[in-house]
Protein backbone atom coordinates (compact mmCIF):
# COMPACT_ATOMS: atom_id res chain seq x y z
CA UNK A 1 0.00 0.00 0.00
CA UNK A 2 1.23 3.54 -0.80
CA UNK A 3 0.14 6.89 0.59
CA UNK A 4 -1.06 10.17 -0.87
CA UNK A 5 -0.05 13.30 1.05
CA UNK A 6 -2.70 16.01 0.76
CA UNK A 7 -1.56 19.66 0.97
CA UNK A 8 -3.15 22.02 3.51
CA UNK A 9 -5.16 23.84 0.86
CA UNK A 10 -6.96 20.66 -0.21
CA UNK A 11 -7.52 19.11 3.22
CA UNK A 12 -10.84 20.91 3.52
CA UNK A 13 -12.03 18.54 0.78
CA UNK A 14 -10.59 15.33 2.32
CA UNK A 15 -12.30 15.72 5.70
CA UNK A 16 -9.02 17.00 7.10
CA UNK A 17 -7.08 13.85 6.12
CA UNK A 18 -3.37 14.55 5.64
CA UNK A 19 -2.45 11.09 4.32
CA UNK A 20 -4.79 8.87 2.37
CA UNK A 21 -3.83 5.24 1.67
CA UNK A 22 -4.13 3.90 -1.88
CA UNK A 23 -3.83 0.56 -3.61
CA UNK A 24 -3.50 2.14 -7.09
CA UNK A 25 -0.59 1.02 -9.25
CA UNK A 26 0.12 4.40 -10.87
CA UNK A 27 0.06 8.10 -9.96
CA UNK A 28 -2.92 8.69 -12.28
CA UNK A 29 -4.81 5.77 -10.74
CA UNK A 30 -4.14 7.07 -7.23
CA UNK A 31 -5.44 10.54 -8.12
CA UNK A 32 -8.58 9.05 -9.63
CA UNK A 33 -9.11 6.90 -6.55
CA UNK A 34 -8.71 9.98 -4.34
CA UNK A 35 -11.16 11.96 -6.47
CA UNK A 36 -13.68 9.08 -6.32
CA UNK A 37 -13.34 8.84 -2.56
CA UNK A 38 -13.70 12.62 -2.08
CA UNK A 39 -15.96 13.93 -4.88
CA UNK A 40 -15.67 17.49 -3.51
CA UNK A 41 -11.93 17.38 -4.21
CA UNK A 42 -12.22 16.30 -7.87
CA UNK A 43 -12.97 19.77 -9.37
CA UNK A 44 -9.93 21.17 -7.54
CA UNK A 45 -7.58 18.55 -8.96
CA UNK A 46 -8.98 18.35 -12.48
CA UNK A 47 -10.13 21.19 -14.72
CA UNK A 48 -11.73 21.20 -18.12
CA UNK A 49 -11.46 17.93 -20.08
CA UNK A 50 -10.15 16.17 -17.01
CA UNK A 51 -6.72 17.85 -17.19
CA UNK A 52 -4.83 18.47 -13.99
CA UNK A 53 -5.17 22.04 -12.70
CA UNK A 54 -2.06 24.16 -13.46
CA UNK A 55 -1.13 24.51 -9.77
CA UNK A 56 -1.08 20.74 -9.13
CA UNK A 57 2.43 19.30 -8.79
CA UNK A 58 3.02 15.64 -8.07
CA UNK A 59 6.05 14.13 -6.39
CA UNK A 60 6.77 10.46 -5.73
CA UNK A 61 9.21 10.18 -2.83
CA UNK A 62 10.47 13.75 -3.46
CA UNK A 63 10.87 13.23 -7.23
CA UNK A 64 8.77 15.34 -9.56
CA UNK A 65 6.73 12.95 -11.72
CA UNK A 66 7.37 15.20 -14.74
CA UNK A 67 10.95 13.87 -14.59
CA UNK A 68 9.56 10.31 -14.33
CA UNK A 69 6.61 9.01 -16.36
CA UNK A 70 4.05 11.67 -15.42
CA UNK A 71 0.69 10.25 -14.35
CA UNK A 72 1.88 6.82 -15.61
CA UNK A 73 4.63 6.73 -12.97
CA UNK A 74 4.23 3.43 -11.07
CA UNK A 75 3.61 3.40 -7.32
CA UNK A 76 5.38 0.71 -5.31
CA UNK A 77 4.64 -0.53 -1.79
CA UNK A 78 5.02 2.29 0.82
CA UNK A 79 5.76 4.95 -1.81
CA UNK A 80 4.56 8.43 -0.90
CA UNK A 81 2.72 10.45 -3.57
CA UNK A 82 2.79 14.12 -2.60
CA UNK A 83 0.37 16.62 -4.09
CA UNK A 84 1.87 20.09 -3.77
CA UNK A 85 0.50 23.33 -5.15
CA UNK A 86 2.78 25.80 -6.88
CA UNK A 87 1.44 29.25 -6.31
CA UNK A 88 1.67 31.77 -9.11
CA UNK A 89 0.04 35.02 -10.08
CA UNK A 90 0.74 38.58 -10.97
CA UNK A 91 -0.72 41.88 -11.94
CA UNK A 92 -2.79 42.65 -14.99
CA UNK A 93 -0.84 43.22 -18.18
CA UNK A 94 -0.62 46.95 -18.65
CA UNK A 95 -0.80 48.43 -22.08
CA UNK A 96 2.77 48.32 -23.34
CA UNK A 97 4.81 51.48 -23.27
CA UNK A 98 5.68 53.13 -26.56
CA UNK A 99 8.89 54.64 -27.83
CA UNK A 100 8.34 58.36 -27.21
CA UNK A 101 10.79 60.74 -28.88
CA UNK A 102 11.76 63.05 -26.01
CA UNK A 103 14.01 64.99 -28.36
CA UNK A 104 10.89 66.11 -30.30
CA UNK A 105 9.17 67.04 -27.04
CA UNK A 106 12.17 69.05 -25.82
CA UNK A 107 12.62 70.86 -29.14
CA UNK A 108 8.97 71.85 -29.15
CA UNK A 109 9.24 73.04 -25.54
CA UNK A 110 12.37 75.09 -26.30
CA UNK A 111 10.63 76.84 -29.24
CA UNK A 112 7.48 77.37 -27.14
CA UNK A 113 9.51 78.84 -24.28
CA UNK A 114 11.46 81.17 -26.59
CA UNK A 115 8.25 82.25 -28.31
CA UNK A 116 6.47 83.01 -25.01
CA UNK A 117 9.43 84.97 -23.60
CA UNK A 118 9.68 86.96 -26.85
CA UNK A 119 5.94 87.73 -26.66
CA UNK A 120 6.33 88.99 -23.09
CA UNK A 121 9.49 91.01 -23.70
CA UNK A 122 8.09 92.70 -26.81
CA UNK A 123 4.62 93.02 -25.20
CA UNK A 124 2.92 91.46 -28.21
CA UNK A 125 0.02 89.81 -26.39
CA UNK A 126 -1.89 89.42 -29.68
CA UNK A 127 0.49 86.51 -30.47
CA UNK A 128 -0.70 84.51 -27.41
CA UNK A 129 -3.88 83.19 -29.11
CA UNK A 130 -1.79 81.96 -32.05
CA UNK A 131 0.38 79.85 -29.76
CA UNK A 132 -2.72 78.71 -27.81
CA UNK A 133 -4.33 77.56 -31.09
CA UNK A 134 -1.14 75.76 -32.20
CA UNK A 135 -0.91 73.93 -28.86
CA UNK A 136 -4.58 72.93 -28.85
CA UNK A 137 -4.35 71.74 -32.48
CA UNK A 138 -1.21 69.79 -31.47
CA UNK A 139 -3.18 68.22 -28.61
CA UNK A 140 -5.99 67.21 -30.97
CA UNK A 141 -3.48 65.70 -33.43
CA UNK A 142 -1.47 64.04 -30.67
CA UNK A 143 1.77 65.74 -31.80
CA UNK A 144 3.74 68.66 -30.36
CA UNK A 145 3.00 71.93 -32.17
CA UNK A 146 6.47 72.58 -33.56
CA UNK A 147 7.26 69.17 -35.11
CA UNK A 148 7.87 70.80 -38.50
CA UNK A 149 10.86 72.66 -37.03
CA UNK A 150 12.07 69.49 -35.35
CA UNK A 151 11.93 67.55 -38.63
CA UNK A 152 13.98 70.26 -40.33
CA UNK A 153 16.62 70.08 -37.57
CA UNK A 154 16.65 66.27 -37.85
CA UNK A 155 17.18 66.42 -41.61
CA UNK A 156 20.07 68.83 -41.09
CA UNK A 157 21.52 66.36 -38.56
CA UNK A 158 21.55 69.09 -35.91
CA UNK A 159 19.59 66.97 -33.52
CA UNK A 160 19.08 63.23 -32.99
CA UNK A 161 16.02 61.43 -31.69
CA UNK A 162 15.92 60.31 -28.06
CA UNK A 163 13.53 57.37 -27.93
CA UNK A 164 12.41 56.48 -24.40
CA UNK A 165 9.87 53.81 -23.39
CA UNK A 166 7.08 56.02 -22.08
CA UNK A 167 3.35 56.80 -22.31
CA UNK A 168 2.54 59.45 -24.95
CA UNK A 169 -0.87 60.29 -23.40
CA UNK A 170 0.37 62.31 -20.37
CA UNK A 171 2.53 64.50 -22.66
CA UNK A 172 -0.47 65.11 -24.89
CA UNK A 173 -2.54 66.00 -21.82
CA UNK A 174 0.18 68.38 -20.59
CA UNK A 175 0.22 70.12 -23.98
CA UNK A 176 -3.55 70.49 -23.78
CA UNK A 177 -3.30 71.98 -20.28
CA UNK A 178 -0.72 74.53 -21.53
CA UNK A 179 -2.94 75.39 -24.53
CA UNK A 180 -5.94 75.82 -22.23
CA UNK A 181 -4.00 78.20 -19.94
CA UNK A 182 -2.99 80.28 -22.98
CA UNK A 183 -6.60 80.23 -24.23
CA UNK A 184 -7.55 81.60 -20.79
CA UNK A 185 -4.83 84.24 -21.14
CA UNK A 186 -6.27 85.18 -24.55
CA UNK A 187 -9.70 85.71 -22.98
CA UNK A 188 -8.13 87.80 -20.21
CA UNK A 189 -6.25 90.02 -22.69
CA UNK A 190 -9.44 90.34 -24.78
CA UNK A 191 -11.55 91.34 -21.81
CA UNK A 192 -9.17 94.06 -20.63
CA UNK A 193 -7.36 92.12 -17.87
CA UNK A 194 -3.76 92.10 -19.10
CA UNK A 195 -2.41 91.34 -15.59
CA UNK A 196 -4.37 88.08 -15.43
CA UNK A 197 -3.35 87.35 -19.04
CA UNK A 198 0.34 87.68 -18.18
CA UNK A 199 -0.05 85.65 -14.97
CA UNK A 200 -1.54 82.75 -16.97
CA UNK A 201 1.17 83.16 -19.64
CA UNK A 202 3.88 83.08 -16.97
CA UNK A 203 2.42 79.93 -15.42
CA UNK A 204 2.89 78.25 -18.80
CA UNK A 205 6.43 79.70 -19.10
CA UNK A 206 7.31 78.33 -15.64
CA UNK A 207 5.87 74.87 -16.31
CA UNK A 208 7.57 74.58 -19.72
CA UNK A 209 10.87 75.71 -18.14
CA UNK A 210 10.51 73.17 -15.30
CA UNK A 211 9.88 70.39 -17.80
CA UNK A 212 12.66 71.42 -20.19
CA UNK A 213 15.38 72.13 -17.64
CA UNK A 214 14.19 70.18 -14.58
CA UNK A 215 12.83 67.07 -16.32
CA UNK A 216 9.53 67.31 -14.45
CA UNK A 217 6.26 67.50 -16.38
CA UNK A 218 3.54 68.85 -14.06
CA UNK A 219 0.78 68.12 -16.62
CA UNK A 220 1.99 64.49 -16.82
CA UNK A 221 1.97 64.24 -13.00
CA UNK A 222 -1.62 65.54 -12.94
CA UNK A 223 -2.49 62.90 -15.58
CA UNK A 224 -0.94 60.06 -13.53
CA UNK A 225 -2.51 61.21 -10.27
CA UNK A 226 -5.90 61.42 -12.02
CA UNK A 227 -5.37 57.87 -13.26
CA UNK A 228 -4.48 56.77 -9.74
CA UNK A 229 -7.73 58.07 -8.26
CA UNK A 230 -9.70 56.53 -11.13
CA UNK A 231 -10.75 59.64 -13.11
CA UNK A 232 -12.38 58.32 -16.32
CA UNK A 233 -10.19 58.73 -19.42
CA UNK A 234 -6.94 58.60 -17.43
CA UNK A 235 -5.79 54.99 -17.61
CA UNK A 236 -2.01 54.85 -17.81
CA UNK A 237 0.39 54.29 -14.91
CA UNK A 238 3.92 55.74 -15.00
CA UNK A 239 6.66 53.44 -16.35
CA UNK A 240 7.79 51.10 -13.50
CA UNK A 241 10.07 52.83 -11.01
CA UNK A 242 9.45 56.32 -12.40
CA UNK A 243 7.93 59.02 -10.16
CA UNK A 244 4.77 60.44 -11.80
CA UNK A 245 5.83 63.39 -13.98
CA UNK A 246 9.59 62.65 -13.94
CA UNK A 247 11.23 62.08 -17.29
CA UNK A 248 11.90 58.32 -17.60
CA UNK A 249 15.31 57.00 -18.52
Amino acid at each position, binding site marked *: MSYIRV*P*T*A*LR*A*YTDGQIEVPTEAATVGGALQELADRYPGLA*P*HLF*GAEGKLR*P*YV*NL*FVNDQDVRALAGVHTPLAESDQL*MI*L*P*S*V*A*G*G*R*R*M*STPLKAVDHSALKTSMAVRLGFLLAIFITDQSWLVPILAALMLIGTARGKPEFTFGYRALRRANWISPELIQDNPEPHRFALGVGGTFLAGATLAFGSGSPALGWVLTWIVIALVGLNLFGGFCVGCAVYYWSS*RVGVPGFSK*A*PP*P*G*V*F*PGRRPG
Partner: protein
Amino acid sequence: MSLRIASQLMAEIRRHAEQRYPEEGAGLILGSLDGEDRNAHAVLPVNNRFEAKQRGRRYLIDPKDILSAEEEAERQGLTVLGVFHSHPDHPPTPSKFDADWAVPWYIYLITTVRQGIAEQTRAWRLQEDHAQMVEEQLAIEQESR
Protein backbone atom coordinates in the same frame (compact mmCIF):
# COMPACT_ATOMS: atom_id res chain seq x y z
CA MET B 1 -14.72 34.07 6.16
CA SER B 2 -12.24 36.67 7.31
CA LEU B 3 -8.53 36.93 8.00
CA ARG B 4 -7.39 38.55 11.23
CA ILE B 5 -3.82 39.76 11.15
CA ALA B 6 -1.75 41.79 13.61
CA SER B 7 -0.53 45.15 12.36
CA GLN B 8 3.10 44.04 12.96
CA LEU B 9 2.66 41.13 10.53
CA MET B 10 0.96 43.42 8.05
CA ALA B 11 3.94 45.78 8.33
CA GLU B 12 6.25 42.84 7.57
CA ILE B 13 4.25 42.02 4.41
CA ARG B 14 4.37 45.66 3.30
CA ARG B 15 8.11 45.92 4.01
CA HIS B 16 8.80 42.80 1.94
CA ALA B 17 6.71 44.20 -0.94
CA GLU B 18 8.67 47.48 -0.81
CA GLN B 19 12.04 45.70 -0.66
CA ARG B 20 11.21 43.65 -3.76
CA TYR B 21 9.88 46.61 -5.79
CA PRO B 22 9.85 46.93 -8.82
CA GLU B 23 9.57 43.13 -8.77
CA GLU B 24 6.62 41.30 -7.27
CA GLY B 25 7.30 39.98 -3.77
CA ALA B 26 5.53 36.96 -2.36
CA GLY B 27 5.27 34.73 0.67
CA LEU B 28 3.06 32.50 2.77
CA ILE B 29 0.79 33.21 5.72
CA LEU B 30 0.85 30.75 8.62
CA GLY B 31 -1.84 30.67 11.23
CA SER B 32 -4.78 28.94 12.82
CA LEU B 33 -8.42 28.31 12.02
CA ASP B 34 -11.23 29.64 14.14
CA GLY B 35 -14.36 28.11 12.64
CA GLU B 36 -14.82 29.84 9.32
CA ASP B 37 -12.35 32.59 10.24
CA ARG B 38 -8.57 32.53 10.09
CA ASN B 39 -5.96 34.09 12.37
CA ALA B 40 -2.51 34.87 10.97
CA HIS B 41 0.36 34.08 13.37
CA ALA B 42 3.41 34.37 11.14
CA VAL B 43 4.42 35.36 7.64
CA LEU B 44 7.10 33.63 5.63
CA PRO B 45 8.54 35.63 2.72
CA VAL B 46 9.83 33.36 -0.06
CA ASN B 47 11.81 33.92 -3.24
CA ASN B 48 9.94 34.77 -6.41
CA ARG B 49 10.91 31.86 -8.70
CA PHE B 50 9.41 33.32 -11.85
CA GLU B 51 11.95 33.98 -14.61
CA ALA B 52 13.88 37.16 -13.78
CA LYS B 53 12.68 39.25 -16.73
CA GLN B 54 9.01 38.77 -15.81
CA ARG B 55 9.25 39.32 -12.06
CA GLY B 56 7.86 42.85 -12.39
CA ARG B 57 4.46 41.37 -13.19
CA ARG B 58 4.59 37.71 -12.18
CA TYR B 59 5.47 35.63 -9.15
CA LEU B 60 5.87 31.93 -8.58
CA ILE B 61 6.25 30.08 -5.30
CA ASP B 62 7.98 26.76 -5.81
CA PRO B 63 6.11 23.65 -4.55
CA LYS B 64 9.20 22.77 -2.48
CA ASP B 65 8.87 26.14 -0.69
CA ILE B 66 5.23 25.30 -0.01
CA LEU B 67 6.29 21.93 1.44
CA SER B 68 8.90 23.60 3.68
CA ALA B 69 6.26 26.08 4.84
CA GLU B 70 3.78 23.29 5.54
CA GLU B 71 6.40 21.40 7.56
CA GLU B 72 7.35 24.59 9.44
CA ALA B 73 3.68 25.27 10.13
CA GLU B 74 3.14 21.73 11.41
CA ARG B 75 6.15 22.09 13.75
CA GLN B 76 4.53 25.22 15.20
CA GLY B 77 1.07 23.64 15.34
CA LEU B 78 -0.12 26.01 12.60
CA THR B 79 -1.52 25.78 9.08
CA VAL B 80 -0.57 27.47 5.80
CA LEU B 81 -3.55 29.79 5.43
CA GLY B 82 -2.64 31.45 2.16
CA VAL B 83 -0.36 33.65 0.18
CA PHE B 84 0.63 37.31 0.03
CA HIS B 85 2.04 39.05 -3.01
CA SER B 86 2.50 42.55 -4.37
CA HIS B 87 1.33 44.33 -7.52
CA PRO B 88 3.95 46.97 -8.39
CA ASP B 89 2.19 50.13 -9.62
CA HIS B 90 -1.10 48.26 -10.04
CA PRO B 91 -4.28 47.98 -7.98
CA PRO B 92 -4.61 45.25 -5.32
CA THR B 93 -7.17 43.33 -7.35
CA PRO B 94 -6.63 39.84 -8.80
CA SER B 95 -5.75 39.56 -12.48
CA LYS B 96 -7.04 36.79 -14.74
CA PHE B 97 -3.63 35.14 -14.29
CA ASP B 98 -4.09 35.30 -10.49
CA ALA B 99 -7.48 33.57 -10.81
CA ASP B 100 -6.26 30.97 -13.33
CA TRP B 101 -3.47 29.92 -10.99
CA ALA B 102 -5.23 30.40 -7.67
CA VAL B 103 -5.27 27.48 -5.28
CA PRO B 104 -8.68 26.82 -3.68
CA TRP B 105 -9.20 27.51 0.02
CA TYR B 106 -6.06 29.68 0.30
CA ILE B 107 -6.55 33.33 1.14
CA TYR B 108 -4.64 35.75 -1.10
CA LEU B 109 -3.44 39.13 0.15
CA ILE B 110 -2.53 41.55 -2.62
CA THR B 111 -0.65 44.77 -1.81
CA THR B 112 -0.20 47.66 -4.20
CA VAL B 113 3.30 49.16 -4.19
CA ARG B 114 3.44 52.53 -5.89
CA GLN B 115 6.83 54.01 -6.64
CA GLY B 116 8.33 51.78 -3.96
CA ILE B 117 5.79 52.64 -1.24
CA ALA B 118 3.29 49.99 -0.12
CA GLU B 119 -0.29 51.21 -0.23
CA GLN B 120 -3.56 49.30 0.03
CA THR B 121 -3.81 45.56 0.80
CA ARG B 122 -6.94 43.56 0.03
CA ALA B 123 -7.85 39.91 0.70
CA TRP B 124 -9.27 37.50 -1.90
CA ARG B 125 -10.26 33.86 -2.23
CA LEU B 126 -10.97 31.67 -5.23
CA GLN B 127 -14.66 30.93 -5.65
CA GLU B 128 -15.39 27.20 -5.21
CA ASP B 129 -16.30 26.86 -8.91
CA HIS B 130 -12.96 28.51 -9.90
CA ALA B 131 -14.88 31.16 -11.89
CA GLN B 132 -13.34 34.18 -10.17
CA MET B 133 -11.77 35.49 -6.98
CA VAL B 134 -14.04 37.13 -4.43
CA GLU B 135 -13.05 39.65 -1.80
CA GLU B 136 -12.81 38.54 1.82
CA GLN B 137 -12.74 40.60 4.97
CA LEU B 138 -9.30 41.62 6.21
CA ALA B 139 -9.14 42.66 9.87
CA ILE B 140 -5.86 44.34 10.85
CA GLU B 141 -5.49 44.34 14.62
CA GLN B 142 -3.26 46.66 16.62
CA GLU B 143 -2.15 44.33 19.42
CA SER B 144 0.21 41.46 18.72
CA ARG B 145 -1.46 38.07 18.85
